[in-house]
């Protein structure tokens, strides 16, 4: 058994970690959860965002601001990628599944190697006033950067939830996810809405990338570790549910952090947690915890 204070610490760090996981999965929750695009390149785009943040921060821009600035070009990039995907795979229809996944997988490889060629394989990190210092709560020291990431993640979740429930386009995106043919019958163009939504998903990935580099140094092949994690969160959440994504992120973060801090298990078992959880969910309740 774990001592109680250790457990408490584990849960606390798990909540912070979980919000981070939820934030990095938010984009995928839109692109895969709502739009049904097998976007395995999502973590690679996120790492690309992290490196763009790195470049901008070298020019003296604060990493969070850099993440916000990057949303514009990433939005365009996302629209382009979706357009290309639609023209080459979704439109042709037959056998799109396998080739679509392979396409995004290839895209992820190209981004990864491109980053290696430009930046090398070394780890990169950013500097800001809140990176490196920490806050004390009683006996527990919490690094300030995790609090910053926590705040950004919460803000992002609230914004996206409001967007999908209050605005016209946001509701249209949800409508596309629910019943595409019906939308077509109503005279709306589902492709344009999906393109817009994919742009948003990619823009969110840019912010996630900024958080990725705030929370720790990044390296080009980091996306491989995050493919499983982000998909685990999205599947666990039930496809496309924003609040579900946060809950799933928290479950993942807390369980991973408890295993990490547990005296008998430790860091070497931590990666298996999320994936064991994922397999379990897929086997028992494939529609996810908050699925429709």
């Amino acid at each position, binding site marked *: 058994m774990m001592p109680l204070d250790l457990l408490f610490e584990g849960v606390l760090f798990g909540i912070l970690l979980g919000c981070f996981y939820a934030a990095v999965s938010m984009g995928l929750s839109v692109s*895969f959860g709502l739009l049904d695009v*097998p976007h*395995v390149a999502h973590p690679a785009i996120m790492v690309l965002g992290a490196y763009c943040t790195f*470049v901008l921060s070298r020019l003296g821009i604060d990493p969070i601001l850099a993440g916000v600035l990057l949303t514009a070009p990433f939005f365009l990039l996302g629209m*382009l990628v979706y357009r*290309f995907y639609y023209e*080459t795979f979704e439109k042709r229809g*037959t*056998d799109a*599944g*396998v*080739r679509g*996944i*392979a*396409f995004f*997988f*290839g*895209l*992820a*490889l*190209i981004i*990864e*190697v*491109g980053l*290696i*060629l*430009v930046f090398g394989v070394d780890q990169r990190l950013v500097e800001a006033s809140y990176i490196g210092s920490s806050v004390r709560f009683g006996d527990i020291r919490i690094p300030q950067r995790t609090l910053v990431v926590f705040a950004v993640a919460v803000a992002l979740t609230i914004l996206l939830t409001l967007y999908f429930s209050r605005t016209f386009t946001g509701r249209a995106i949800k409508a596309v996810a629910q019943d595409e043919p019906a939308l077509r019958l109503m005279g709306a163009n589902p492709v344009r809405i999906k393109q817009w939504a994919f742009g948003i998903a990619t823009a969110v990935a840019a912010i996630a990338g900024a958080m990725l580099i705030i929370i720790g140094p990044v390296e080009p092949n980091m996306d*491989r570790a995050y*493919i*499983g994690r982000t*998909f*685990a969160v999205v*599947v666990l959440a039930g496809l496309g549910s924003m609040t579900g994504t946060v809950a799933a992120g928290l479950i993942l973060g807390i369980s991973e952090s408890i295993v990490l801090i547990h005296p008998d298990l430790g860091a*070497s*078992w931590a*990666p*298996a947690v*999320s*994936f*064991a959880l*994922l*397999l379990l969910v*897929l*086997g028992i309740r*494939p529609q996810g915890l908050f699925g429709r």
Partner: protein
Amino acid sequence: MRFWFFSIAILAAVAAAAFIVKNEFVFYAGYTVLLYVVLATAWNILGGYAGYVNFGTPAFFGLGAYTGAVLYKAFALPLGLQIAAAAVMSGLLGLIAGLLTLRLRGIFFAIATIALVVIMETVFINWRYAGGATGLQLLRPPPTAPFESYIKMLFVIMAAMAIGAVAVARYIQDSWIGRGLRAIRDSEEAAECSGVATLKLKVFACTVSGALMGAAGAPMPMYLSFIEPASTFNLNYAVGALASPMIGGTAHWGGPVIGALLLSSLQQYVSVTISNEMNVLVVGVLLVVFVVAAPEGVLGLLRNAMAPKPWTREAVQRRVVMIPIVIAAGVALGAVLYVLFDFLIAKGERVIVYSVLALMLPGLLYLAFRFIRWVFNP
């Protein structure tokens, strides 16, 4: 009949080469190429025929490799038994994973297989007896009688396994199992309605595919005299196993063989002459180009090229004139860009060069796509 004749001829040629050729590097490289032939063929049984993408090649391959290594460490079993045991273990893994996740849509299966790789890696990192994270050093036994070196023996064994894997894939493809799998790929619901036992067939394909991957992994610890989790469960195996059939063509057993031979020979060449990163880039670009521009792979292109076509005089004349012009224009453009980029790199502006290249890439891919389409479809 003809298939078996050719198989035996190839195996005989390989064995003869093992006695004649002296350069050991040929066998080191050839072993890897043949390994990918097995992995790609095995992948294609589930991925190509049934349309279920498996990212878990490293899990099956690695479990096989570790089964071999542990059995060798514990009982010094001969290689043949190691391979058999590895096939059984990985087949079991395929059976369990299949039963658990093949009820779901393809993308969920793909994600679950990624999970499988990480879980396997974690298990073996934490298993002390098998060497843990640092790995296990193994002392190779002396080679069996007719072979003078161990590598040559492994090479011949891998060649035999490649032929065995292709035979299995060919049998499945031509039998009712293959027909069922193809029905699943085209429309799972329609297949189910027509009385195809979809789940059974998928789980069977997953088991066979896993067993073949495991068998291919078993000689790996002997090949390296060493085994450790990070490189054994490396995602690069998944990349190779997935990309080869996509490049060669997934509909026929010849596709993965051609794809693996092309791709891994190219990879061996690129990683020796240029760099390891470039080698991953080559796979990524080839994968995207083929998936977008030639969904049927090399086999599809060949079939298109050989199919009788209305080769009117006018169409042929246009091609004869246009193809050299387009190629010359491409080469000229490449040369200009090369000089320009070389100049920029010399001035230290690497970031600009690579971002321009990255921006150009989609356009170039699209142009290549249109060109290939135009050449083959008038």
